[in-house]
């Protein structure tokens, strides 16, 4: 007898439990996932006067990949102080990754990001230095009082007060009459006739508090969930679930739903763990010089400064130069452009010998030019005190406070413990060399693979739209906002012309049987052990180097686990039930990722994809998106030109619904 069975008087579950009780919800536009993209989709649709329902597994007021806050609002190239056009910027985004990027989402965001920023200001989020704390600062536009990050010349990325971004969005959703269903896990998509590949007409869900069942019927649906976390790494023991860069709630449910419904996906073979690794530190909470900390001076143990260079390797003499394009360069991309493309490369700190992982510039993909390294005595520190006063204040007082998961965890906790950015050097830590699946990275600006869409942001399935981190190779916060808003308006238009959905009872019943099985069993595996076991399969069979044999073995183990441990998984309350169902999705996503890996029979540097059985790197015939989908349970592969987005200006004009 184990301890849990022995304890008879455990406290009662605080919510009334009603497994299987059915709630039916009817709407025009059904939004699945209430993060940044989902809230904007709901807002975009509701403004068109249609009936909107929004479903979220957590609490819409704070959930989602960008739910904890935002400090950089990217791609505001249409703001009055910007020096670049949306076309120019989109081209740079594409070029800097040699075309391996979602051109549709990149252009929509370049066009609409600034409009979204102005709208969120109206919803209550602070976007300007209205108190004039930074009057005269190099990064401030005096006319608009907007503050900019990275390239102070081109001014395309705004610094914002985004800690309460979800509160603002949540309030606006409610003001517009969006019906919000919190703590409801979306378990499946419903399709016309219950058939894979048919029009999507709604979804099913289960409450993680009451265990009740939901049947959502929508004329159009938007999936806006993030790409899978907890796929390769899972342990709550080391530091809770905090190693995930995004909420660990984000188990790629949308990917799993889409894959099962027959949606076409691209780029999933590039999936990687993301997050800071189980041995990392609080995000943005250690001394460094990248993104939120850009471009903080780093010193070694003796106080020696690590030099910065421009794209051509010229040593920069002042802090100010770290925020300016090189001679003859119009603008640089934040982070220097991920592909190390000389045209968009920004200033960077020289990497330190033995700490090659430390600086973004040194992380170098295979084939990236060799960079000079400098000697330094460990450990290294972020030297905020030496930074010009306004830079110091904006880095620690604004960016670190507002980034997301930082206001309380970093700013409040550190300052209360006595940390003073005017006086103290915050230590940085190295990761050292380790297998890719254990590294930090992934996540960030470029999301992983996922559903492909057309210029209406509709997936390959009729009636199903996608937005945010759900779409393949999309970006982060601003991209989620812009594509969410866009998808919501397109979905509303679709719904206005669409017939009422009729659900297939057999499909609903089959889903109910699947969903509630874990609460009817006893003595099986619980969700945490199952999650860790599934991750082990990913580590062992979908690691750094892939091959047909290894991937096929991985699929075999997943099939076995599905019929074995997963089929015995148990849950003792609705919370555990949803956690079990999440792990089922992690298994499905593992299968999907492995199928995506099998479909690309070539190694590829841009995707960080290595196959031992196809070692030739970047063969020209494989410079294309490889797509996968399920059709009557069978995996079908396809392909798509890298630049399938076509003429972005023309297509945006034809589809965006903007009158200008």
């Amino acid at each position, binding site marked *: 007898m184990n301890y849990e069975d022995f304890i008879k008087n455990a*406290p*009662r579950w*605080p919510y009334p439990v009603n497994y299987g009780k059915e709630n039916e919800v009817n709407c025009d536009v059904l939004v699945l996932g209430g993060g940044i993209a989902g809230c904007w989709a709901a807002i975009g649709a509701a403004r068109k006067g249609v009936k909107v329902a929004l479903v979220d597994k*957590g*609490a819409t*007021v*704070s*959930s989602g990949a960008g*739910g*904890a806050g935002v400090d950089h609002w990217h791609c505001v190239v249409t703001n009055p102080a910007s020096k670049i056009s949306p076309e120019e910027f989109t081209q740079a985004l594409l070029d800097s990754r040699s075309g391996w990027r979602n051109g549709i989402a990149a252009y929509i965001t370049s066009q609409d990001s600034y409009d979204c920023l102005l709208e969120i*200001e*109206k919803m*209550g*989020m*602070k*976007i*300007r230095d209205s*108190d004039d*704390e930074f009057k005269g600062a190099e990064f401030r536009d005096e006319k608009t009082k907007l503050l900019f990050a990275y390239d102070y010349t081109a001014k395309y990325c705004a610094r914002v*007060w985004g*800690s*309460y971004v979800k509160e603002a969005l949540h309030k606006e959703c409610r003001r517009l009459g969006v019906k919000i269903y919190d703590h409801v896990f979306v378990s499946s998509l419903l399709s016309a006739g219950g058939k894979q590949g048919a029009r999507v007409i709604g979804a099913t869900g289960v409450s993680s508090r009451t265990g009740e069942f939901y049947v959502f019927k929508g004329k159009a649906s938007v999936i806006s969930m993030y790409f899978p976390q907890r796929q390769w790494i899972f342990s*709550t*023991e*080391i*530091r*809770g*679930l*905090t190693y*995930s860069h995004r*909420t*660990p*709630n984000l188990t790629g449910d949308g990917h799993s739903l889409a894959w099962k419904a027959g949606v076409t996906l691209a780029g999933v073979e590039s999936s990687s763990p993301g997050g800071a690794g189980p041995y990392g*530190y*609080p995000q943005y909470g250690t001394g460094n010089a990248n993104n939120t900390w850009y471009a903080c001076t780093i010193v070694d143990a003796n106080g020696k400064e690590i030099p910065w260079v421009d794209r051509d390797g010229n040593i920069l003499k002042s802090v100010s130069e770290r925020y300016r394009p090189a001679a003859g360069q119009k603008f640089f991309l934040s982070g220097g452009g991920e592909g190390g493309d000389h045209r968009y490369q920004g200033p960077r700190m020289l990497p330190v010998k033995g700490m090659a992982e430390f600086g973004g510039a040194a992380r170098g993909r295979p084939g990236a030019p060799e960079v000079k390294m400098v000697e330094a005595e460990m450990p290294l520190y972020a030297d905020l005190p030496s930074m010009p006063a306004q830079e110091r204040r904006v880095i620690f*007082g*604004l960016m670190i*406070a*507002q980034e997301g*998961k*930082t*206001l*309380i*965890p970093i700013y*409040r*906790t*550190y*300052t*209360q*413990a*006595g*940390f*003073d950015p005017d*006086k*103290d*050097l*915050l*230590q940085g830590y190295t990761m050292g060399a380790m297998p890719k699946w254990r590294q930090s990275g992934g996540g960030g600006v470029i999301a992983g693979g996922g559903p492909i869409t057309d210029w209406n942001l509709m997936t390959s399935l009729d009636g199903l739209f996608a937005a945010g981190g759900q779409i393949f190779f999309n970006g982060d916060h601003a991209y989620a906002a812009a594509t969410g808003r866009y998808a919501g308006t397109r979905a509303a238009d679709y719904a206005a012309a669409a017939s009422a959905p009729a659900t297939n009872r057999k499909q609903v019943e089959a889903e109910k049987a699947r969903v509630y099985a874990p609460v009817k069993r006893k003595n099986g595996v619980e969700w*945490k052990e199952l999650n860790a076991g599934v991750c082990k399969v990913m580590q062992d069979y979908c690691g750094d180097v892939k091959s047909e044999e290894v991937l096929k073995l991985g699929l075999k183990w997943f099939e076995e686990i599905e019929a074995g441990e997963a089929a015995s998984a148990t849950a003792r309350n609705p*919370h555990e039930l949803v956690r079990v169902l999440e792990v089922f999705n992690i298994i499905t996503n593992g299968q999907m990722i492995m199928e995506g890996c099998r479909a690309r029979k070539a190694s590829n540097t841009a995707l960080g994809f290595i196959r031992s059985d196809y070692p030739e790197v970047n063969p020209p015939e494989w410079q294309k998106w490889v797509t996968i989908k399920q059709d009557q349970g069978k995996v079908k592969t396809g392909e798509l030109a890298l630049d399938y987005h076509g003429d972005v200006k023309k297509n945006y004009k034809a589809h965006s619904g903007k009158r200008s």
Partner: protein
Amino acid sequence: MAKEDVRMFPNMVTPNDPVIFNEEVCNGCNNCVEHCVMDILMPNPEKGEPPIILYPDECWYDGVCVKSCPLWQKGAITLNHPMNQRVRWKRKATGKHYRIGMPNPPKPNNKPPVGGWDAKA
């Protein structure tokens, strides 16, 4: 001497205490329960009492519970990084080393972030 009241317990879940409630200040409003995206807090069956941290192992330390608390600045709820997440720093002028959670911490730095704790448009 009275016999010690010793019970059987399984090991505690790690991390132990991701958030700390001050029972004197917390009024049991459960705002934090409704804001937590991981849903790790359960309302206390006794009205007016702090929530129960049922799933400390699922905490991802976003601090949303603290932000959502109307009494957080009075200390009703504090985020508590686990020991292995407590970073270190060095005071530039003195070369003295510090860490979060040290026994004799330096004085708190009470400067609020740019725009205050609750910056809105």
